[in-house]
């Protein structure tokens, strides 16, 4: 981490007063300079040989390859506790990790808007380097494009990832059974509120930071202890409500949420009350909803709570035979209500 911080400072001193121009995407000298002097120092090269158009990677001795890709277009590109750089690494790492795979290699496609300050780009690249180091993955290939001002919003990043899934690991929605418990590894909604606050559209001030984090080591801890995981998904856009609806509809089961068990910070609840938002639909970037057989659920919960990414883990729901394909919440108050899929974006109510 210290190496990355030092590198960042050196690069800001050298390039801090410059902005990205169309020349940096032209394929010529300026682009070569950007890649060699700014991008590669953060990500490194896969080998000592000259850069090729592809990364050449050894095949795993056993197991299966997992592959995923995702594009990151968040506004603003920096927000409390995180940035588009952290998201671009952790989001793709988590898409692999929730299959049970060990993520290994990432690609990085940068689409940069003409006029972006080098200093901002350097910050984001450093965030990516740090996140990759923490998640124990390597960025082995990439692509850089510069587009006209107005064609994208400062910076879009696409990352693809490859991981290895051990033979025998096979979690998925079809394995969900009546009686299973659903666990989440901590407070929901922090990322959604952090983004809302960062957009500056709120008169509210909040100290909430994004929960953006890689989930690999938490999931690997459960697997290494032999916890049978029937299904797992990272809880991102659409929030916990959306993942639980996907489980219910995909497996043809009912899901009953216990509202009192859902971990949520009072400040996030407060923001939701004021704006008329439902925290169940707020985005997260470091949360996984695990479906575990009832007889292993308590052990899984205790293990999760020993991990830094799972200190506030909770058992929030159970798979039931009633109301198939629907998610119902037993409220703290005593009533029950349907928790449906979100329609469009959550829009604040007027009164």
């Amino acid at each position, binding site marked *: 981490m210290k190496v990355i911080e030092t590198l960042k400072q050196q690069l800001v001193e050298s390039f801090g007063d410059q902005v990205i121009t169309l020349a940096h995407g032209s394929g010529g000298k300026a682009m070569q300079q950007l890649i060699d002097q700014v991008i590669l120092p953060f990500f490194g090269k896969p080998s000592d040989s000259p850069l090729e158009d592809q990364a050449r990677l050894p095949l795993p001795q056993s197991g299966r390859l997992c592959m995923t890709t995702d594009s990151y277009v968040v506004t603003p590109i920096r927000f409390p506790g995180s940035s588009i750089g952290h998201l671009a690494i952790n989001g793709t790492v988590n898409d692999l990790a929730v299959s049970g795979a060990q993520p290994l290699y990432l690609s990085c496609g940068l689409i940069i808007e003409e006029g972006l300050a080098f200093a901002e780009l350097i910050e984001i690249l450093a965030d990516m380097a740090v996140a990759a180091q923490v998640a124990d993955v390597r960025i082995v290939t990439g692509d850089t494009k510069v587009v006209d001002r107005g064609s994208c919003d400062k910076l879009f990043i696409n990352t693809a990832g490859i991981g290895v899934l051990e033979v025998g690991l096979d979690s998925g929605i079809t394995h969900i059974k009546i009686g299973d418990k659903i666990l989440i590894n901590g407070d929901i909604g922090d990322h959604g509120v952090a983004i809302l606050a960062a957009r500056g*559209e*709120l*008169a509210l001030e909040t100290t909430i930071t994004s929960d953006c984090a890689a989930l690999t080591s938490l999931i690997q801890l459960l697997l290494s202890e032999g916890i049978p995981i029937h299904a797992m998904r990272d809880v991102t856009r659409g929030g916990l409500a959306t993942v639980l609806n996907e489980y219910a509809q995909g497996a043809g089961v009912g899901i009953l949420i216990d509202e009192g068990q859902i971990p949520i910070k*009072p400040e996030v*609840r*407060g923001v939701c*009350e004021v*704006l*008329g938002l439902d925290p169940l639909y707020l985005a997260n970037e470091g949360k996984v909803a695990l479906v575990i057989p009832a007889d292993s659920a308590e052990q899984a919960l205790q293990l999760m709570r020993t991990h830094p990414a799972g200190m506030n883990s909770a058992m929030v729901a159970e798979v039931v035979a009633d*109301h198939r394909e*629907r998610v*119902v919440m*037993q*409220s*703290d*108050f*005593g*009533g*029950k*209500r*349907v928790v*449906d899929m979100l*329609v*469009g974006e959550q*829009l*604040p*109510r*007027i*009164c």
Partner: protein
Amino acid sequence: MKYVDEFRNGKQAMAIAKKIAEQVKTLNVSKQRPLQFMEVCGGHTHSIFRYGLAQFLPEEIEFIHGPGCPVCVLPMGVVDDCISIAERPDVIFTTFGDAMRVPGSKKSLLQAKAEGHDVRMVYSPLDALQIAKQNPEREVVFFGLGFETTMPSTALTLQQAAQEHVKNFSLFCNHITIIPTIKAMLDSPDMRLDGFLGPGHVSMVIGSQPYEFISRDYNRPLVIAGFEPLDILQSVYMLVKQLVDGRCEVENQYERIVPKTGNQVALHSIGDVFELREFFEWRGMGSIDHSGVRIREKYADFDAERKFAMPRLKIADPDAAQCGEVVTGVIKPEQCKLFGKSCTPQTPIGALMVSTEGACAAHYHYGQIEIPISQVVNR
């Protein structure tokens, strides 16, 4: 959370539910002809569904979801007027989030935004004024809507714009006022309501006195209610108790917020900026006399209706949509021919399906399965 969790205590809710059930037994009502209480305000509708409050009540009591969601009662022609302004290249069009999804005859403001027009969601009219100050070369229009709850903030914004001589800001005023609307419902020949839950936020501004004609002239009780589940249940109890005692009064359950005479500062700014319109068109309910306000001559420079030409067309709702009957309690949301078929939150035809406070959207999201009361009370 302080001042919130105290009003969401399940045990207390059960205790109130029990008292309501006991009182109802002493009245001559049946499941076939239950007591119908209308919650006028969309905020109440939302709470009723969110907390499953109908599950706490005996079958002899029914909530009727009234016209109190200002987004839901917007006529399509008004949305078309908004879009005609928003499509002008010199305009930044601003409004609240849930107004952006209301369908006009051809599209919603969200669709206009997707087409590239500068439509922005704001959290208060002051944010819109701020945008105007930051963009002096553009015309910034705020689409103001809502009952007396949101009227003071719009009025104060216009006063501020006038004081600061902001030239490029105007308001498309579609604010509505609650009392004539309740009166119109009471005058309807279909009217059979047994009582009202009065709107808490509106009453915070206007006080409890303006409702007194309802008990005096129409012999119906009204209880001004807060928005937390215990507030609503207690208000239902107060309505039932009035019927049991043979009383008919305006009572105030929400005393912690609502003063009898309202908020004088807010009322003063409303009076300074707005005046009643002769008529105002409501979606599903037709024209109601004196139910809307317009901007006074004094603030004419900030009136979008005078600044911009608009189509001002009256556009009828689709024939099959029964929004008007739902909003006046004649039918329930699921009895509408379109409910859940062609009209869903993804594809709203009637405005009641748009906002989460709309009776149909709330019913669609929260009320699609029948949960037996036994499952609820066994906790």
